[in-house]
């Protein structure tokens, strides 16, 4: 073996030359990588570096939006509930002209009759309204179901309510009368004694 050829490539060494020739296929072709590839890698690594921050930012934005949505929904639901409660506490509405227009002609006379009767009994309703407000259940279903009623059903509903008002008022009058009679009787019995 020629040591000089192995170390400094001086002289000849058949064996080493043969190995060089055999292994030359593994020699690298020194073509430097393109700067665009390096730039791409650079961008990718930058994105990778800030990926966690992007994800955290996105998640926090989502959380804020959800919280805001939840608060908004809560406020609007409360407002609706208050409005519905107010509506349900008001006296039964008087049938308006639009409702009349929707009714068939046959029913119009009945509606007119009920209107006059309703006005006639208005003072009775005023007296009873405070008790009714306390006793009437306040709920969304009542308001919701009222909205779904047809004009005929609505009329029937008003009639039933009116009848109940009148009955309760009459009962009250009777009760008052009985109370007064009792009081008179008591007074007379006391005076007799």
């Amino acid at each position, binding site marked *: *073996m020629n040591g000089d050829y*192995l170390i400094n490539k001086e002289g000849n060494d058949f064996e080493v030359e043969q190995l060089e020739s055999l*292994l030359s296929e*593994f*020699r*690298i072709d*020194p073509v430097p*990588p393109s700067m665009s590839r390096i730039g791409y890698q*650079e961008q990718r*690594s930058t994105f990778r570096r800030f990926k966690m921050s992007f994800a955290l930012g996105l998640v926090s934005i989502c959380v804020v939006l959800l919280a805001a949505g939840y608060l908004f929904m809560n406020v609007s639901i409360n407002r609706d509930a208050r409005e519905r409660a107010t509506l349900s506490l008001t006296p039964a509405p008087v049938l308006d002209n639009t409702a009349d227009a929707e009714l068939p002609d046959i029913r119009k006379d009945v509606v007119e009759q009920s209107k006059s009767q309703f006005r006639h009994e208005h003072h009775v309703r005023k007296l009873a309204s405070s008790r009714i407000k306390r006793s009437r259940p306040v709920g969304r279903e009542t308001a919701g179901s009222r909205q779904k009623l047809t004009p005929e059903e609505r009329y029937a509903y008003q009639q039933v309510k009116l009848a109940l008002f009148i009955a309760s008022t009459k009962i009250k009058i009777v009760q008052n009368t009985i109370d007064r009679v009792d009081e008179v009787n008591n007074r007379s019995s006391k005076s007799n004694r």
Partner: protein
Amino acid sequence: MPEGEAVQDLPLLSGKPSSSIVQPEKRREAVLVESIRSGDEEAFAQLYRMFAPTINAVVLARVPRDEVQDIVQEVFISAFRNIDSLKDANSVGPWLTKIARNRAAEFYRKLKPNDELDEQIARPANRKGEAAEVLRAIRSLSDAYAETLIMRLVEGMTAKEISERTGLKPESVRVNLHRGMEKLRESLGLNSRK
């Protein structure tokens, strides 16, 4: 020569700073590194041409041939990105070889247990097969011998060039080449012609 003149010629005794003695000599690769740091693309290309054979040898001593080119490119891309972390611009060679060794190790870490390395299985009886056989024999040697032999036999570098690129001492390179060659002969079953 008068005594006073002799003293003046000695920079340390004259009190004048001399860059040639106080500072280490600025090698070509150090100049290239500084140019790369200032964004010179051509300097990067020159550095690549200068060190690609060395890095190729380091990677080829460890990794299947098909993967070598990609890993070499990754080494240089990584070096380009982290060039500011290189403290001593004169030692860019050892720095690059270290990156290459790490990348080769990373390749085997990422390799799944079921992945087969075709290069180790296929052994055709033609010239290509012989080359693969010799390369396999070189790889079976220790890393120091394998790297040095590949730099010499594959890349055609002299001992001096290997020493300059890798930062190894010239004596170490000579020893590695001689002992590595002996072991390669033994491994290939060749007769030593001493």
